[in-house]
């Protein structure tokens, strides 16, 4: 009898998992500063190599990627100003660590998209998975559908705006930046946030520790109106504003021994 063992059966398929020597496919059709290619038969690594080749070596400023097929880690590490359109959906980790590009995704994005985004804009026409915009530092991330849990966890800057609802623990340990949620928010909103602002248009299932209602100012109205105007999102709903209450231990100046006595 052939005893099949798991390890001996590993044969990775063509999605870029093990291909350290992948070469640039160079399959794009180029028209001036615009380019377009079909990603259907390409691996993740090939797609990213093609993107970098176009942007960094061919002087292309506007790329359309057709049939991205929800593959993971597409469009990561793009550090220049350019336009990228994904004509479909991305999988996990899409557009991570980008600094400058203007990205338009016509489908959905999976978990952990736009992690550590530094600047630029990402507009997603569909929904997004959990952990979207985690540790984001700058730029605008616009999701026209709904978002999963832990949106903008550890956010350090920039704006995350969704036209739909968000899941649990959105804004967990948020440090700076803004989140604009037109729909409802799951439990633990803004839990342990240090700073930043979260606007919610719908219902909040529960606030997290040290997340409290904030005082609305003209600057808030101006900010919301400007974002809706720039991204042509229509008329904004009425929002509630939430900020950090700054009551947690990390905001006091007590020594650990003193804290035991006081708290």
């Amino acid at each position, binding site marked *: *009898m052939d*005893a*099949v*063992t*798991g*390890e001996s*059966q*590993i*044969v*990775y*398929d063509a*999605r870029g*998992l093990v291909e350290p020597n992948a070469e640039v496919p160079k399959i794009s059709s180029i028209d001036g500063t615009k380019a377009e290619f079909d990603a259907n038969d390409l691996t993740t690594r090939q797609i990213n190599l093609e993107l970098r080749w176009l942007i960094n070596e061919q002087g292309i400023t506007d790329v359309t990627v057709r049939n991205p*097929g*929800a*593959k*993971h880690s597409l469009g990561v590490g793009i550090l220049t100003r350019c336009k990228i359109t994904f004509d*479909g*959906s991305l*999988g*996990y980790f899409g557009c991570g660590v980008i600094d400058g590009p203007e990205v338009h995704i*016509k*489908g*959905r994005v*999976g*978990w952990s998209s736009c992690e550590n985004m530094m600047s630029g804009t990402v507009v997603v026409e*569909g*929904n997004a*998975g*959990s952990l979207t915009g985690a540790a984001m530092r700058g730029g605008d991330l616009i999701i026209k*559908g*709904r978002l*999963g*849990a*832990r949106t903008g966890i550890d956010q350090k800057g920039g704006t995350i705006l969704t036209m739909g*609802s968000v*899941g*649990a623990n959105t804004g967990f340990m948020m440090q700076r930046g803004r989140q604009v949620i037109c729909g409802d928010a*799951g*439990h633990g909103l803004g839990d342990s946030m240090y700073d930043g602002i979260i606007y919610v248009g719908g219902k909040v299932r529960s606030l997290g520790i040290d997340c409290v209602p904030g005082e609305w100012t003209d600057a808030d109205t101006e900010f919301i109106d400007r974002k809706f105007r720039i991204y042509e999102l229509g008329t904004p709903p009425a929002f509630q504003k939430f900020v950090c209450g700054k009551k947690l231990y990390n905001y006091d100046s007590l020594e650990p021994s003193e804290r035991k006595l006081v708290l």
Partner: protein
Amino acid sequence: MLQSMKHRGPDSTGYALYAERTEHVVMRYTTANTTTPRDFEFQNRLQRNRAEAERRLASLGAKVITCEQETDYAFRLTLDYTGELKQLADQIEDIPDCEVLSLGHSLEIIKDLGDAETVCAQYHLEQFQGTHAIGHVRMATESDVDISGAHPYWAYPFSDIAVVHNGQLTNYFQWRRRLERSGHRFNSECDSEIIAVYLAEKMSEGLGLKEAMEKSLDELDGVFTYICVTADALGVAKDEMAAKPLVLFEGENMIAMASEEMAIRAIIDHEINTYDPYEGEVMVWTR
């Protein structure tokens, strides 16, 4: 779909396939596990186990209508049997190294080591005509790489209920002890098996599938997303932490879900709208 998820778990693959209900009982069972020693006595033990299984079936009045041997150790039987399924399963599993993978009138569970294409070819699944199915690719984390540890799990001793699970249960031993005291058996050390038996227990107390799944959100600790399927329903539950992914597509004529969207894309070639269920959500569809 399962082949495109291979990177999530290359150790084993399992299928729970549902066909239209038949009057006969369909039983999938194995006479050895992959961890059974392959010594000089191995082939003899396989033969002895099979003969003993057939003897016990006959003693229970179960008439074997068809018997298909798909590997040295895996069998598919159709039985003319009207007695208790629990008694049938207990009698077969009392034989050392034997395990009943599924028992019922519409469910068939097939699982083995290797990726989806390997298991599909080994068990000739491309010929299967069915109504709905779930599957699982497993990367073993806390229990052995073997058939017992592979998903889906049949909800012993209830017919036609199967579960796949992504996550970890932290009150596994508490629930295992409770359920064992109630007379349930466990064939693996895998925490996922708890969910199938837990749901079966709740349904035996009169709860519907949805109610049982909702109760599990309160009573099972840990992080999990699981799918439970019956002959005519399919349910999904996500814990309050929403730490495990699930992407869902609801079309006019189909429901498709997977841990990653690329699995759904493997069977649908046009743009679709998919979404993640939220934390604490239980969704059930019936056909």
